[in-house]
């Protein structure tokens, strides 16, 4: 698995230029192995969101190097042309709110991603349904997002993040709207899936309930990351 996962070295991001320039990211270094779930914790304005966006290939860093799933995607400049395809194929997103597409049913919400990648509808759907089995929302496969509970929605959102088997999943406050039982359940699912699919997962959070579950935590302050060992508490 070496070379897979996430490697970030000396990532910098500067907004603006000259006197008004702001350095949002000064020196970010992260390593996440496949199958590993790490936490990313930082106060507001620490550069957390900027880091997430840079990882998600929606903003361009200023300097540094990013390797996702064994592919150098950024080395003082984008190394891939189609960022959209990159996002689609290499990165799974799980958000604070589920952000499901309200006019698609649960299955299609998830199956949309493989469909966008050109996978036939039927196959895409069966992939989604497989994930639902793992995530225990199979019975809601034909429901509309609005008919689901918050936890179910979040699980569907996770399924969407996983469906293309991306080497990297970025989860942004995935447990914020959930109570502690559900929040822990979500984290467990992420851990399970990470292991099962060899995925590197970064969970951005400041949710006290789940911080203790991480084995490794990155703190970010003023655009600089600091690595720290977590409690890695087993939950159940």
């Amino acid at each position, binding site marked *: 698995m070496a070379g897979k996962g996430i490697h970030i070295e000396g990532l910098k991001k500067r907004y603006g230029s000259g006197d008004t320039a702001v350095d949002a990211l000064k020196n970010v270094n992260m390593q996440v192995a496949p199958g590993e779930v790490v936490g990313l914790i930082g106060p507001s304005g620490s550069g957390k969101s900027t880091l997430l966006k840079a990882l998600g290939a929606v903003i361009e860093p200023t300097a540094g190097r990013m390797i996702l799933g064994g592919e150098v995607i950024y080395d003082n400049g984008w190394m891939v042309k189609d960022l959209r395809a990159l996002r689609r194929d290499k990165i799974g997103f799980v958000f604070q709110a589920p952000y499901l597409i309200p006019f698609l*049913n649960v*299955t*299609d919400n998830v199956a949309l991603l493989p469909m966008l990648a050109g996978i036939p*509808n039927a196959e895409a*759907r069966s992939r989604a349904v497989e994930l639902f089995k793992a995530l225990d929302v199979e019975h809601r496969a*034909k429901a*509309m997002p609005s008919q689901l509970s918050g936890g179910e929605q979040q699980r569907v959102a996770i399924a969407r993040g996983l469906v293309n088997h991306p080497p990297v999943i970025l989860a942004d406050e995935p447990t914020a709207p959930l109570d502690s039982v559900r929040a822990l359940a979500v984290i467990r699912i992420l851990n399970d899936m990470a292991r099962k699919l060899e995925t590197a997962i970064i969970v951005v959070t400041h949710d006290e309930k789940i911080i203790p579950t991480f084995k490794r935590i990155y703190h970010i302050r003023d655009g600089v990351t600091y690595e720290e060992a977590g409690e890695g508490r087993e939950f159940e």
Partner: protein
Amino acid sequence: MIKRFPIRGRTLALVLVLVPLLALFIYVALRSGPLAPVPVTVTSVEDRAISPALFGIGTIEARYTYRIGPTFAGRIKRLDVHVGDTVKAGQVLGEMDPVDLDERIQGQEAALKRAKALLNEALARQAYAQTQSRRYEQLLEVRAISEETVATKKHELQVAEAGLNAAREELARIQADREALIAQRRNLKLVAPVDGLITARDADPGTTIVAGQAVVELIDPESLWVNVRFDQIHAHGLAAKLPATIVLRSQTVELRTGRVLRVEPLADTVTEETLAKVIFDQLPEPLPPVGELAEVTVALPALPAAPTIPNAAILRRNGGLGVWQIKNGDLRFIPVILGAADLEGNVQVREGLQAGDQVVLYSAKALSARNRIDIVDRIPGVKP
């Protein structure tokens, strides 16, 4: 697209709304505009006899109108009758002012007396000359006087006789003069020539009028007739003695019967009308005013039965008359040759159709052979 996921309620509602909408749209697209079938009504050609008739408009006129006036210029002295009076033949209606005519007659009478006196004198002279002449002849026989003297006396007798003749003629002349004046005097009276009705009084006493100008107008009410004008296009078959019905404008409900008295040999070249006189079988009572409008329908002899169609079915296409025939549901334009028609719009067909043929009577728009048709009892929009 994918297999439809059963979102039953919504799908059903959607279908319930969209399918009727679509159906309506297709209906609208096909049922309006040029694709729509044209509603038509159909009639079958019938064998029947028709009674053609001619229709004309006329005015009541009097056959005889007398316009009475003086024969020379003068002033009206009196006028005794008014419009609406009935008068008898010979009745004095009025009189012209004689001015000096009476005085001139008196003068003529004096002259007459004088002429008579002169005649008497001439008679006396002639008698004396005759006596003298006879006596001198006797004297000559006894040769008491010369022959020359006898000749002188004979000559005197001849002169006296000529004088007598002249006096006689003078008397006759003066008598004739006087009679002429009296006749003139008599002519100043306006006299009714026939029994009749005064229809106009154009002048009143005191008015001076020229010779020939009418003072009163008189008609013979028994001679009222209708002067009818028939459009020449519709005057075929018009002849004397045909029965006619007359409707007066003032009495539209009442039909009067009459007959054609004569068809005028002269037609109106300007208005392209034929004129005819129609008389009443029985004069209406009260008499209609002269000049009243009358509608006259002249019945022509009934024609034998022949295929007949209503005139509404006939149309002109590419210069020829014809009808739309329906055969096995198809529309065909059949040229026809038309015969007589009556006033109710029935037209006999001489050629082109047989009894029993189905033809289009009314249509909601102009037809062409490509039209689809929809046979209805009544064209939409026509109230019963």
